């Protein structure tokens, strides 16, 4: 299943912030975690993560620092700030509201008989 670009873009902030709330990380590792968490459903183009990280940095939600990794290469690590945690909590409330709304309507729909079956009169709840 492929998830459309708008949804991927909209969910990128809470996902990255939540991953960084687990622990400090860097680009490659964040992408690996996204793949792992989504079971491969959320396929980000690798490079596109970096402008997202830079935006979060500009907004003060994450802080970046350069460190020398085990490989001997310099690597840019990101960590969430208190402001980022507050933003994550706000995003989480919004996404839970959206998700609860959808769960509600999915449940209502599942009580109705499948549409378009010939010879079966639609039966409403309590009829």
């Amino acid at each position: 299943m492929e998830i459309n670009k708008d949804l991927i873009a909209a969910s990128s902030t809470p996902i990255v912030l939540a991953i960084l709330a687990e622990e400090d990380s860097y680009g490659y590792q964040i992408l690996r975690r996204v793949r792992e968490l989504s079971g491969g459903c959320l396929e980000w183009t690798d490079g596109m993560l970096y402008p997202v990280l830079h935006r979060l940095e500009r907004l003060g939600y994450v802080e970046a620092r350069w460190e020398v990794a085990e490989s001997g290469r310099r690597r840019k690590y990101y960590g969430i700030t208190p402001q980022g945690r507050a933003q994550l909590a706000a995003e989480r409330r919004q996404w839970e509201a959206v998700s609860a709304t959808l769960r509600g309507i999915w449940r209502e729909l599942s009580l109705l008989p499948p549409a378009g079956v010939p010879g079966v009169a639609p039966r409403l709840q309590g009829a």
Partner: protein
Amino acid sequence: MTDADQAASLEEQIEQWRSYLRRRQAIHSVDVAELEDHLREQVAVLVGAGLDTDEAFLVAVKRMGNLDVLSREFAREHSERLWKQLVLVPSDSEGLRATSRTNAIVAVGLAVAAAVAIKLPALFGIPLDSHAGFSSAI
């Protein structure tokens, strides 16, 4: 290819990729370093999974995404770099559009010039077909 050859070839490919990225005004050298670290880790993981370094490099570059699109995203985020992107480095497609527009203008110009050239003798009262030499030579 020996391991040393493969490593040298990879370094060469990364150097080319890096210099290609550096031409993008919207992507600063510090961002290039960050992307390069990503590319190298991806290559290492793929080589660990059994790919040749050449193959691993190609896959890693492809996963990084289209550089025009990426460069635009960087420009959007770092809007203070945007004007450079617009002024100095039109993306390839913009360059092509500009070229075809120029070509169209040249074509129209030539058509007008040709029409004028045909009509010019008539303007001076000289009908074209009165020049026997001109038509009989064809």
